[in-house]
């Protein structure tokens, strides 16, 4: 068995302490150790974006990042966007615009879309396309995804 180490970080707003193998990637810590299966494995090489999470406010491919590097940092996953009362506006927009079909890529897509909208209130359709280029969806053809993101940007939420 691999050498293990204990790390502490904030996950979706709550402090966590967890022991992880030093070779484990963040994606598998989230899925297999912390049971947060919203973040998906789809390629494991940073090419598809299904495992996108926020780390200190910036999006990363959790499949490329060692879990130990979460130590002392702020991690937000798809499960952390929703409040007790309601879906996050980006999640609601994806639902309302029919941007979700099989939905497998959507956790990563929504986290990335939220990051883009949060950091650029003037986000254009072209910037959206470029910002979502690393998130592969095989179902939707992206059109409704872009419509959903546009609606959030326009509403200023």
């Amino acid at each position, binding site marked *: 068995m691999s050498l293990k180490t204990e790390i502490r970080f904030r996950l979706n707003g709550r402090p966590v302490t967890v022991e992880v193998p030093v070779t484990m990637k963040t994606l598998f810590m989230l899925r297999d150790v912390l049971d*947060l299966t919203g973040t998906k494995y789809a390629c494991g090489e940073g090419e598809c974006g299904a495992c996108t999470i926020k780390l200190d406010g910036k999006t990363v491919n959790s499949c490329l990042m060692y879990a130990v590097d979460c130590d002392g940092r702020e991690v937000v996953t798809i*499960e952390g966007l929703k409040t007790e009362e309601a879906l996050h506006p980006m999640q609601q927009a994806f639902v309302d615009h*029919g941007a*979700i079909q*099989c939905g497998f890529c959507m956790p990563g897509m929504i986290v990335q879309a939220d990051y883009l909208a949060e950091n650029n209130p003037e986000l254009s359709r072209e910037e959206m*396309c470029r910002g979502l280029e690393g998130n592969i969806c095989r179902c939707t053809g992206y059109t409704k995804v872009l419509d959903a993101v546009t609606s959030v940007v326009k509403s200023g939420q």
Partner: protein
Amino acid sequence: MDERVIALPVEKTTLIGKRIKKPDAPDKATGKTRFINDMVLPQMLIGKILHAGRPHAEIVSIDVSAAEKLPGVHGVLTGKDAAGLKFGFVRDNVALKNKVCCEHDEVAAVAAETEEIANQALGLIKVEYKDLPGIFSPEDGRKKDATQIHDDFPENKSLHFEFKHGDLAAADAASDLIVDNVFEVHHVTHCCMGTSCAIADFDNNGKLTIWSQTQYPYNYKMDLAPALGIHPGDIRVIQPPVGGAFGSKLDVYPYEPIAALLAKKAGRPVKVMYSREEEFKSAPTRQAAIIHMRTGCTKDGTLTFRSADVLLDNGAYTSWGPTIPVVMMRTTSGHYRIPVVDFNAQAIYTNNPYAGSMRGYGNVQTTFATAQQMDMLAEQLDMEPLEFHLKNAQKSGETTPQKAFLRECALDECLSTAAQACDYTNKHKQYSLAKGQEGRYKKGIGLASAIHNAGGAKIHKSDGCGTILKVDDYARATVITGASEIGQGIDAIINLIVSEELGVPLEHITIVNNDSDIAPWDVGVHASRTTFIAGNGARRAAVQARQQILNAAARISRMPAGDLDLRGGFVVQEQCGTKVIKLEKLLRQMHFQPEPELVMVTDYYEPNSQPEGADHTSDHSAAYAHAVHIAEVTVDTYTGEVKVDRVTSAQDVGRVLNRTGLEAQIEGGIAIGLGYALSEEMRLENGMLQNPRFRDYKVVTAPEMPALDLHFIESDCAEGPYGAKGASELPTIVIAPAIANAVYNATGIRFLKLPITPEKVSRAIWQKQQTASEN
């Protein structure tokens, strides 16, 4: 006597054509949905497969003793554990092999407590191979001295299909113009975002439960059973949410029986899940083919015949891929009015990966050829392409040579609507004139159309779907349907239909469709059939329930049932809308009355169509539909890059049911077709996949999506639910030839071989320039 209540006419509906949300979307948007890939069962083991990693070889010896001894390993399997358990379309496959016929062949499998241990165990298995000469193209496979891949299949011949109609020699002689080309369509793969996964568990009565991604749960049992040597009745299929399917889950693939065989050996549940690299190498492909097509016409532009000689790369085993000629011949014979047809297709075994079904099955390949030849003929006739298309377009009431009866045919309207929406004819002329001029960027516009079955496809004896509908004492409806949900949105369609007929809110309807022990028979999600077939089933069941409820309300209210309606959770007077009784109150009264009655109805809907039959002449679908795409492209003549700027689509959808879901299907279908046309390609070298990763296999991402202008033609299909037809494959079928025709319009170069990559385009442009300068 109870009165008969008929289904709501479309004029009286309130939701048809509106935007309905997918009921599973909130859970999918929040990461709450547990896909099969996310599932963990108590005591579950991880199964891993040892793939051969070579295309053709004998297995001289295999030693698993070290793997078996590794702590944490609970079972190791090799070819001897599956000996004789043949499965597949022609029973040419086994779960674990004694001989290697393609790169991903499954040589051994282990079940262990963790993935790490399973991988370690695979590394301890020693296999000695003796490599054999391989066959990597169907042309090589049919050579006289070619190595025979399977003992049971001489000359490497797999399936053969033919269809002849009319006198080809006479039609040939009567043609003023004939185009004759060889088209090559390549291997691509589905790239489902959720990789292939199965979880299997046996109970102590010998019954298997398999959690599966299948999109055809009932025939799946029949196909899986021989791979395990058990009775299909002893298999329960549970379908958790899946990360895409697109046809790839329409057959049994070896990892599924392997999960079951490991579960049996270990006595514990076993999960097998592919890595992305395994997915690229081991999941089915779209069928690759070489299509020699000829189309003739007279000088006034009337089509005289079409012939196609198709050679299919069967790959190592026979799944659904080599059966695509069943659809290919329908397109060859039914795409425009073709009086004489000659179709011939032969599949040849090779040591390449093998194809399954993929969205647009067979039609994608053939329409790439037919739609380009329509464009070629128009040019050679010096006729406006639109005029040529319209002249040969079938009309309602016509029958194709294979006896497909086009009850409601809207090809004319699709052509005219699309052409008008984007000013096709003017742009086509203008770009054609500009193509010889200087300049780096060339614009082009291309039109293509396609026909596809849109009311199921009776390739089995049945094309039916069962539905059970119950309405409980709180007026909540549960629809237990055979139809599978793989992301396409049948859940929203059924909710819409039942809500419409029973006047209950969408959110008061629950669909149960994920357990073969509960839900009734269905043929599966394929052939653009589910909205049509399961939608009709849901409607018929809902109408029965509506009738029963209104009859009960009539007895209680002493008003004629025909004067009553169900709206907003109430029984109301049909004319004035006055409330008669709250629906849930009525249902409780029905339960509690002296002669209690339960609202629980069943329906079995079998579409009005005939089985395909051995001679391939039958009206095999209850509806047919056309789609027209017009692609506008910019070709960078320096880099060879083709950018699709805009796609105008006009499709006969019969009737729009869920507008959002329909648009979503068409947009997604276009994206898959776009990748097929321009960038996706499984690069095989001697049977070995060179690009098993997204970095090297380019699927369409957001920046490549063109602007889309979608038009829906509502031909009001008499047999369809509220007039609707199936819709989801046509957009994938028709986009590639539209792009090829647009690239021709821009550059004057025909691309008969897919994909149309920058490398091919820039090379062709360079060659054209060389030829021009030499002359």
